[in-house]
Each structure stands twice: as C-alpha cells, then as structure tokens.
C-alpha cells in the first residue's frame, strides 16, 4: 500500500512533483495517479463504447479485464470505454498578483499550484471526453480558450496556462461572466482563485450562472501562512495588489486573525453554497489529488 502511495503523483508533495517537469508532464502524472487510485472507473455508465485496451495495472477492477484477450494472447489488458458526454466545462483561473505569492520558499506559489491543478482538472475532464475551456483573469480577462473536446485542446490549454499574467487586481465576476458566455449549454464552471476580492460581485455572478443551469465549483486556494500569519514578530504587511500597508505584531493579532479568516471562509462557503455552488478550500501544501478529488466529485454530480 505504501509503495502504491509513494508512486502516485497525485499524492506527492506539490512542490516535489512540480519540480519534476513542466505543467503538461506533471498534470499527466497527477491524473494518471489519480485515476489508478479510483476504486470505481470514471468511465462506468450508460452509452459507453469500447475505445482501446490498456495494460492491466494493480488496482484495476477484474470485471474490466478482457479475459478473451488474456486467453488468446497471454497478456492481461483492461478494456477502456469512451463515455459520450455533453458536459462543457470552463476553468476560470485567477492569475492576479496576490496569487503569485508563497508564504515559504519550499512551497509553490498559489498561482503555480493553481496552474497545475487547473491543468490536471482539464486533462481529467478531457480524458472523459468532456469539452474543457479556460479563462485566465486578473483585473481583466487575460486569455480565453473556448471549451472543446477535440484533439489539440490540451495543448492549447497548456499554452494558455503558461502565458504571463499577474495584474494588480482580481475581477472574478467579469471572468465568470465571460466563462458563462463561453458555455452556451448547461455545463460546469470551475473557479480557481484565492478570493481576495469583494464577495458581493462574485456571489451575484455565481447566482446568475446557477440560474442559467450552470454548475459552479469554487476552489479557494490558500497558502498555509494566510491561515495563520507568517512567522514574524513585528512587521509592516503590504498587500502586493492594492499596496495597502498594515503594521502589526504577529503575536498580538494572531488569534484575532485566525478567527477572522475562519469567519471569512465560513462567509464564502455560506454565500456560495446558498446558491447551490460547490465551495472547497485548497491549501497549497496539500497533494494535488485532494483538490482533484473534490473537482472530480463535482463532475460526477453534473448532468
């Protein structure tokens, strides 16, 4: 069991897996590891048709083994099916300056973590024959890739993820509206952001998307230091986006800060879930598999 855990990329430390290769490569490892760890095949369901054989891996269900092939060719293979789908998903990624921050050098920045997570989610959806698009935003919509399922979409998505961004502010509402416009039919919008913005506009837009029948998943990216303040005594804390400065002694305000963050997260959850959106917090030192599983759960609930 330990060996399986150790070799599954989705359960490795995010910084470690990110250091091993580019987004494109690491996203594949993460998704492969994630899928091999599923006890239930993501391709199970109605309207499935045979696609190809895949070599048997430990953990695959015996019912998917092609026994005829095993008897004939003396090799074990698993049948893979293509599930027909009508899901169109758009990943809305916050690339503002506040995302390009890490509380410790050994951790990925929120943006680096979010980019890899977005790539893994996109690949996971594409493997299920879902159409996936991408909207990157900061104070404006930086880039937009319409949802497609065809070959080459993955390359376009990865290329878009590697574009520069990091403007001064975050206007998620505008990006969510753009994402909604990209999806003509009912589909899914996955917002990946640190949500350091006013909640009213975001919640209002989410409510609009829900009224149109879109499923909305919000992955709130947080650095551990944002939950508990950086380890410092007395310092001038500067917001990289707005330039606002606050002098504080960490030991004095830590308890109050923790309570405030707890309240703020609870407010986001309450506001978003009240309109039927999924809300999950994702800490940047957690393995990608944890966040991927949450996004995947939301996908399974989609029509």
């Amino acid at each position, binding site marked *: 069991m330990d060996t399986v855990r150790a070799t599954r990329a989705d359960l490795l430390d995010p910084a470690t897996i990110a250091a091993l290769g580019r987004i494109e490569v690491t996203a594949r490892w993460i998704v492969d590891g994630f899928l091999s760890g599923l006890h239930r095949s993501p391709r199970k369901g109605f309207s499935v048709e045979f696609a190809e054989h895949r070599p048997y891996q430990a953990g695959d269900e015996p019912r998917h083994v092609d026994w005829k092939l095993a008897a004939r060719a003396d090799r074990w293979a698993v049948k893979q099916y293509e599930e027909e789908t009508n899901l169109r998903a758009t990943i809305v990624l916050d690339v503002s*300056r*506040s*995302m390009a*921050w890490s509380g410790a050098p050994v951790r990925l920045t929120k943006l680096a973590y979010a980019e890899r997570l977005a790539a893994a989610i996109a690949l996971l959806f594409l493997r299920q024959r879902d159409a996936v698009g991408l909207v990157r935003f900061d104070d404006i919509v930086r880039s937009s890739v319409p949802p497609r399922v065809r070959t080459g979409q993955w390359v376009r998505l990865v290329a878009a993820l590697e574009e520069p961004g990091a403007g001064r502010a975050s206007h998620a509402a505008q990006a969510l509206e753009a994402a909604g416009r990209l999806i003509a039919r009912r589909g899914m919008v996955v917002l990946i952001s*640190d949500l*350091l913005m006013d909640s009213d506009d975001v919640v209002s837009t989410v409510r609009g998307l829900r009224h149109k029948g879109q499923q909305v998943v919000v992955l709130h990216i947080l650095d551990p*230091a*944002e939950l508990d*303040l*950086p380890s*410092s*005594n*007395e*310092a*001038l*804390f*500067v*917001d*990289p*986006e*707005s330039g*606002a*400065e*606050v*002098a*504080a002694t960490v030991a*004095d*305000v830590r308890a*109050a*800060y923790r*309570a*405030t*963050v707890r309240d*703020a997260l609870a407010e986001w959850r309450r506001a978003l879930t009240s309109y039927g959106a999924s809300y999950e917090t994702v800490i940047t030192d957690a393995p990608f598999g944890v966040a991927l599983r949450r996004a995947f759960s939301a996908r399974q609930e989609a029509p």
Partner: protein
Amino acid sequence: MGFLAPIWLLAGAAAAVPLLIHLMRRRIGTRIDFPAVRYLVRAEREHSRDLRLRNLLLMLLRVAAVLLIALAAAHPIIRMAGGGHARTALAVVLDNSLSTSAVVRGRPVLQELEARARDIVRRASSTDRVWLVTADGIVHGGSRDAVLDAAAHTEAFGGAGDLRAATQRAALLARSAALDAREVVVITDGQATSWSEPLALADLPLHAFLPAAPAPDNHATIAASAVPARWTPRGAVRARLRAPDSTTYRITLEGRTLARGAARARMDRRHRGARARRAAR
C-alpha cells in the same frame, strides 16, 4: 523598608521605555508582502477593543517588569518579625560579674545570660558586625561564629566589673562601624552593684535583658580588710557583705582555709524597708 543599593532605583526610569514605545507610533523596518492584508485589517477592526486592552496590559506588564528588576537590584530590606533587617552593628554587653555565678533553679545565672547572648548574636546576618563585650572589659569581635564561641565560653570573674564602662565601650564599637543601623544590647542579672546610676546612650538604641527569674539575693563581699594588715594567727578579717540575713563565710589564703562560720547580717534601713514591702505583698 530600606535599600542596600538605592542607586539601582534610578534604573526604574527605564520603565519609561515601554511606555514611550506604547505611546509613540513605531517605525517598522521589516516589510512583508502579504496578500491577505484585507483579513488583517478586518481582524484589527473587529477585535480592536480586545487588541487595545491586550496592548495596554502588555505595556503595564513590561513597565512592571522593569520596575521590579530595578527594585530587586536595589536590594530592598523589609523589617519583619524574624525576617531580614538592615546591616547592623551589634554590640552585646554580657555581664559576667561574680554575682552571675549564683545558682538559681539548679544552674548558674551566667549560663542563662550566655544563652540569651547567643540567641541575639545568632539573629545577626553575615552582613552585620558583631562584638561581645564582657563586664571585665574584654572585647570579642570577628565573625559571628567567633562571637558565638566567645559567648559560650565566657566565665564569671571575681569581681563586680564595670558594666557601665563596658556598655560605653560597646557603644563606641557600634558607632565605629559605617553601617545603616547600630544597636547595643546589655545582658545582665541586674544586680544593684552594677547599676548604681542610670545609663543612656543618646544616639544608639540600648536594649537590656534581664533573667526571667527574680534576682537572687546578693551575698557579694563589698569590702574586706585584714587587721592587722600583715596577717597573724590572732589577726582578724573585717568584711562587709551585701546579704539580707545571716550567711556562711569562709576565709582562704592561697587555697588554705583560715576560718569559716556563719555571720549574722545587720540590715540597714533601706534593706529592712524592702523586706517589709515584700512581706506585705
């Protein structure tokens, strides 16, 4: 309350430092990029009352800590029952006149006086100066243990001694020490022969200790003279005793007993009056 090192009280002025830090808006050199500043601002806004109270308490604690350190450095001394005391020059006058060799309740009076002297000397701390002056004019000084030892080995000498002179000498010794406090303690059996006149030390507290038991009758020989002065077998010894009634006597010369017997005392008027008052009580 006193202080052994009062100069350190000036260090209490450092208490102004945390006060100034609290009152002045500090300049902070460390800048940290922190995207979640909005949460920090909100935390300070929502918990401003708690934070202000906490800062105030913290400032008070810091001020108190500085003051306590300064106070501790100044070595405060508080007089308490059996507790610490200021550095003291203590001169103990121990009456070891012949009368203190009288046996009362099975033991010599001097033994009780010595015990009392040792008790007093034991209460002295290592920073005190202690002397023991006996009625025969001998001075014992040095460490507390040396004085204790001297008090334990003091013997009665054959005579009344001069307690008045011994007390004045003790006062001189106490005055000579440059210490915060000076005391003279006289431990005596209180015989009238020793204290014919009142004694007061103007600038020093003088304590006198007397045995709890009433003073024994004084049989001391006040005067004795041989007649003729050159002793002959037919010679006589005229002696004057302080005895309330008859008393035995023994005359010795170089260890040889020359005569012994009982002498009947003639009471003077003063003595008779005292006995009459005792009888009336």
